[in-house]
């Protein structure tokens, strides 16, 4: 069991948007959906290692900025060429305006 880590303030992310969060040499992407829920995934695309936080969020999809590979940021599922490997997702919760993420080992 690992601890919850404070990633950012809820207000740091616009609705239907994403930001990058780096922690102890790892990089993550934190999303706020159009219906105001928060999600977290690994920060790098599984095709080439590109930061997904530079990409575009549309509904429940994050689109990679490099070659438009698409993932569901809610489930991590790869949604077709050129990406075929899913993204890892992480538990997330909001408490008193702060976004907390549980990173695991």
């Amino acid at each position, binding site marked *: 069991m690992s601890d919850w880590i404070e990633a950012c303030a809820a207000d740091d992310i616009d609705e239907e948007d994403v930001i990058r969060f780096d922690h102890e040499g790892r990089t993550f992407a934190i999303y706020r959906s159009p219906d105001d829920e928060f999600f977290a995934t690994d920060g790098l695309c599984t095709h080439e290692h590109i930061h997904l936080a530079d990409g*575009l969020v549309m509904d429940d999809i994050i689109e990679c900025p490099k070659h438009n590979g698409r993932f569901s940021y809610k489930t991590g599922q790869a949604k077709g060429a050129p990406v075929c490997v899913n993204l890892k997702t992480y538990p997330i919760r909001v408490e008193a305006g702060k976004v907390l993420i549980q990173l695991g080992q």
Partner: protein
Amino acid sequence: MTVTSGMVIIGAGECGARAAFALRENGYEGLVTLIGAEKHLPYERPPLSKDIMVCEDHPVARTIAAQEYFDEKAIQFIAETTVTHIDRRAKQLAFADGQSLPYEKLLLATGAIPRTLPLAAESRHCAYLRSFDDALTIRARFRPGARIVIVGGGFIGLELAASARKRGAEVTVLETQARVLMRGVPEEIAETIAARHRQEGVQLRCGIGISAIRDSGASATIGLANGETIHADLVIIGIGAVPVTALAEAAGLETGNGIFVNEYLQTSDPDIFAAGDCCIFPLALYGGRRVRLEAWRNAQEQGTLAARNMLGFAEPHLSVPWFWSDQYELGLQVAGLPDEGTLTIRRDLGDGAFILFHLAADGRLVAASGIGPGNAVARDIRLAEMLIARSACPAATQLAAPDVKLKSLLAA
């Protein structure tokens, strides 16, 4: 006796491989055969001028899928086999060894090959880049201090120039036109890229013709039209690509600068489709203007669409053209065809990144081209692409203002 025929795809590049998978994704259960002239499993070409040239370890081709995946999807992949004849009447293909293969529907995804320079024909020190094997040959000669001359200031030439510099080679680029990237990229962006190359020590010489290439031992001597000579350990010819149409032409299909297809990617024979770099197609976005693209995403999209239309979906190709290029830390992306525009609006994004929006005379946004470090322009180019797809007419003042979010224009 009945011979079962099925879907056959000629050309196992990006487009052919995507089409094979798309046939299965769309529920097709018959035979799928993918035939390719190269010995490798289908692989991605864009890294050939980029990562493959500079990576530290022994380079490996980035395959589109592993053999097991082809097996799992029951796609018969036949490597190292060139199709030499299409018998349209009998609906079957002939191979060099006399074998034949019947087809129900056929997809031509034969791609393009580098345009050759007749002056280079006699030289052993000239190379072209299209395949993984070409890339290995070139890579082996990118050594510190090696003199590399690149003929042609197009994307492949410039990406190779950047890669060669990273490997410590001395690089000269010779371009006959007045500037680099004459096709497809506006001057302001080409100038940004040219300046970056000069800063890295690349000799960029535009408006210069070549009169001869002669070998002298381990190097080549290039004679320039102005009488000057330069020496090179390796000359790379990057003067564009030509579509592979001979097979289609011999079968009596309509061809020109590419295999002619309609908006459903169907050739003049309704049982034969063509897609990717080899085809010339009408672009609905610009009133049916015929274009041939040499772009990776187009190869994927058209491969997928051709597969659906082989199965009878009858869907037109509607996508907005899009491509990228990477040189040093700079990322370029272009959505739409900038030459459709008459008015250009610039938006600065900070860090030297900027986007040019190209508007037609009637106010429609027809293209957007952007450049900046890393993926700085990606998000806005993607949003611009969506505006282009809708034939939106955003106000010039809003496009120019970095604080106006493009996403808000999309909602309008």
